[in-house]
């Protein structure tokens, strides 16, 4: 394969990954790393380095829209980013210590988990439980908020709870992000939604907002270590950004639930491939 063909292939796939990612609300990272390593034989360190930059790009692009719509709870995000960045640095360092074999196995596990949680998202949501435990930390930091809900046609106020639990969970999400070069939205959204009881739309927007900063912390480590190879990372970043833009335009015209089922199957297959590579 010539460098030109390599760049074109990587760009083309990243365009696809960015489009599908923004349609399904997952980052491109889950697809990029397996493609680069399994199909093109790129060193997993470079694959992760390229992926982490594309994660920042998609997060920032989507966050621009969410923040403007005031869906993002910036205070909750800032508070939890202390945990996610600390976790990301831990993860990025651990990645250098554990071998490629373990990275493949871990990656396989996270993909399988993401696939299952995507499937569960399609089930009807349980009614929110009454009687939220009061949380002093959330009160002190003034984390409670409100947002304009189009479906409800008005301002919806919400209270935040269990801030310490959310903080602990975010540290774990940060570790997984730094270790594998992914956004870990599949871990962040449940922590906000089920753990801290933010409304689902606010959870999604806030998770997305935090992903950029989390990824920047690990990207710093990866860059300084020389794991961000521009020859691999450039076509990935350009492709994913353009793909995410297409995806956001497409989103209005197609029903994401149709492709979601298909996609769960694809993810499970990729997960199996990563496992086999790790066990080989």
């Amino acid at each position, binding site marked *: 394969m010539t460098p030109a063909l390599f760049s074109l292939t990587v760009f083309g796939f990243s365009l696809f990954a960015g489009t599908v990612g923004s349609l399904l609300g997952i980052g491109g990272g889950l697809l990029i790393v397996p493609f680069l390593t399994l199909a093109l034989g790129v060193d997993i360190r470079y694959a992760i380095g390229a992926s982490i930059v594309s994660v920042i790009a998609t997060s920032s692009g989507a966050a621009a829209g969410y923040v403007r719509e005031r869906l993002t709870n910036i205070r909750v995000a*800032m508070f939890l980013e202390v945990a996610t960045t600390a976790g990301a640095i831990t993860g990025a360092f651990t990645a*250098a210590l554990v071998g490629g074999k373990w990275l493949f196995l871990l990656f396989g596990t996270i993909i399988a988990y993401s696939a299952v949680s995507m499937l569960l998202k399609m089930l009807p949501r349980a009614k929110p439980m009454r009687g939220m435990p009061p949380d002093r930390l959330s009160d002190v*930091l003034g984390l409670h908020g409100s947002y304009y809900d189009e479906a409800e046609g008005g301002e919806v106020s919400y209270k935040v709870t269990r801030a310490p639990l959310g903080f602990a969970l975010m540290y774990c999400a940060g570790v997984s992000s730094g270790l594998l070069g992914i956004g870990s939205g599949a871990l962040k959204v449940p922590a906000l939604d089920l753990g801290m009881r933010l409304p689902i739309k606010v959870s999604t927007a806030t998770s997305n907002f935090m992903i950029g900063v989390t990824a*920047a912390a690990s990207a710093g480590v990866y860059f300084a270590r020389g794991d961000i190879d521009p020859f691999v990372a450039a076509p990935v970043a*350009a492709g994913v950004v353009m793909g995410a833009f297409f995806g956001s335009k497409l989103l209005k015209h197609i029903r994401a639930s149709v492709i979601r089922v298909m996609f769960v199957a694809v993810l499970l297959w990729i997960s199996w491939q990563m496992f086999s590579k790790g066990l080989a």
Partner: protein
Amino acid sequence: MNPDPPVQAPSVAAGVRGIGLEIVISELLRWGVIASTSLIVVGMAVTFLRHPDYFQSTEALQRLTSPDRAPHSLEDVLTGLRDVRGTAIEMVGLLSLIALPVARVAFSLVVFATRKDRRFVWLSGMVLGLLTLSFLLGRAE
């Protein structure tokens, strides 16, 4: 990259939290992504214009994706820029993408400071400190 959201009723909470922060962060992120991606695309074009052999040679790929050739430091990137190397331009684009969330945190810190929100000045300061630490620790390795 999202399309413009529909015009909305002014949020009550926004009045309390201040409207400026959201709009400025949104614009910073939007234009930051556009500018960085443009740089990356220009860098890719320069790379292939300067290396016509990349269209034929298969062994060049080996070299380009082999471990330990990526620029490790800002000095490497600056030297490459002076020589108008495509990969250096790509790297500036990639680094400015990485810097976007950092700039967002720094900007929030300033806004929290002007509002005399001391707890959040501390929190943003800690995030900024951790981000700086990530660069320093990676280098020291």
